[in-house]
């Protein structure tokens, strides 16, 4: 990890954002998103991009900020004004929650300091007694366990492992710049749905080539669930997620309120 020293102080994107908000003496409920986004981007430009794990987390937040910024620039539809949600709301909620834990961890730090002044002693069981070793009744301990159960447990673990050797993710080595068309993907999922009606979530991903594509596909599915155009189910743990396409047409993303 070779982040410049001045940045090392930040634990993550939320930490950095809180710092910027603090530094600018900004009201957290009314974040001037344009300025903050610029400052944020300025900061991460200064970061060493060698550590992709850390970098990517900061980039995700950058994308969120830009997304909020673009939403705020869009003219609000007069008719929907009454229920319009501030695009910053979700971010504000996250920041507040995070801030709360930061605050509480300071309180815990004090408590730990107080408690560290209390001392305990090691067990001193007299040697005459300490030879005794507790007998554990293995039979009753194992009474509910059958070979079949043990086998099933192991099977589910191996299955999980196999899932983890994710052929897609194991191919990640670098982050590439690529153009993913969100609205196109959104429509593609629906086309696939109209054609197959019921299909495995996995099969949706078969044509995807990159992490970003998978993420976008996943977001699309989530959005379709939210607006009630698809239904998902899973028969048992670790089974494939089945998707049922409920609608009989295809809608544009704008219509879905993405």
């Amino acid at each position, binding site marked *: 990890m070779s982040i410049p020293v001045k940045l090392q102080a930040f*634990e993550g994107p939320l930490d950095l954002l809180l710092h910027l908000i603090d530094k600018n003496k900004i009201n957290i409920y009314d974040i001037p998103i344009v300025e903050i986004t610029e400052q944020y981007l300025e900061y991460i430009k200064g970061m060493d991009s060698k550590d992709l794990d850390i970098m990517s*987390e900061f980039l995700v937040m950058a994308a969120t900020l830009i997304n909020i910024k673009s939403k705020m620039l869009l003219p609000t539809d007069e008719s929907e004004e009454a229920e319009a949600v501030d695009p910053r709301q979700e971010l504000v909620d996250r920041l507040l929650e995070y801030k709360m834990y930061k605050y*509480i961890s300071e309180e815990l730090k004090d408590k730990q300091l107080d408690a560290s002044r209390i001392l*305990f002693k090691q067990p001193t069981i007299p040697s005459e007694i300490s030879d005794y070793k507790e007998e554990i009744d293995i039979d009753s301990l194992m009474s509910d366990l059958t070979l079949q159960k043990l086998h099933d447990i192991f099977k589910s673990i191996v299955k999980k492992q196999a899932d983890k050797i994710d052929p897609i993710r194991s191919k990640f080595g670098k982050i590439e710049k690529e153009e993913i068309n969100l609205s196109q993907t959104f429509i593609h999922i629906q086309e696939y749905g109209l054609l197959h009606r019921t299909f495995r979530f996995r099969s949706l991903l078969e044509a995807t080539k990159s992490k970003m594509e998978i993420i976008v596909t996943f977001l699309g599915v989530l959005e379709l669930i939210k607006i009630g155009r698809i239904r998902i189910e899973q028969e048992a743990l670790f089974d494939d997620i089945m998707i049922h396409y409920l609608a009989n047409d295809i809608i544009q993303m704008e219509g879905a309120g993405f």
Partner: protein
Amino acid sequence: MVEAQIEAILFTMGEAVELERIAGALDHDEETTRKIIHNMMDKYEQEDRGIHIIELDGAYQLCTKASMYETIIKITHIPRKHILTDVLLETLSIVAYKQPITKLQIEAIRGVKSDHAVNKLIEYSLICEMGRMDAPGRPILLGTTEEFLRCFGLQSLEALPIMNPEKLEDFKLEAEEELQLKLDI
């Protein structure tokens, strides 16, 4: 006599002993035992005692009074246990207040990967696995341990500093005041 037995048990065992076990050793019911212990706890608070009994989630443990610390460090070196960094403290607070919680949920709140912090806290016995979540992938659920209560001087999880929703309100007020300030200008 019963008090002597309880003192001997707590002294010998060193660790926290569950009420149930103490009662079992004394052939008393738990309620009576609990009353006797709490009566003892009051006595220990007298000036001439340097140790007292603390309660940890229904178990009892003997330890020195905090006021004795200055004297004890004169006679022996007390190794600092684990020094918790801000990252660890932050992660620990999230686990403490949101338990049982998965690593992913922690990461969602912190906005960063938290493997290292979670593993360190497990290593320090401050948090532990509490089973798996009944959800796809069956992620591991994490919660705090007895060691956590001891390290932070808490009788039980209920003794955690309260934060919602008043604290949130404070934050809000703070923000509103700032806003007001700006509007006034």
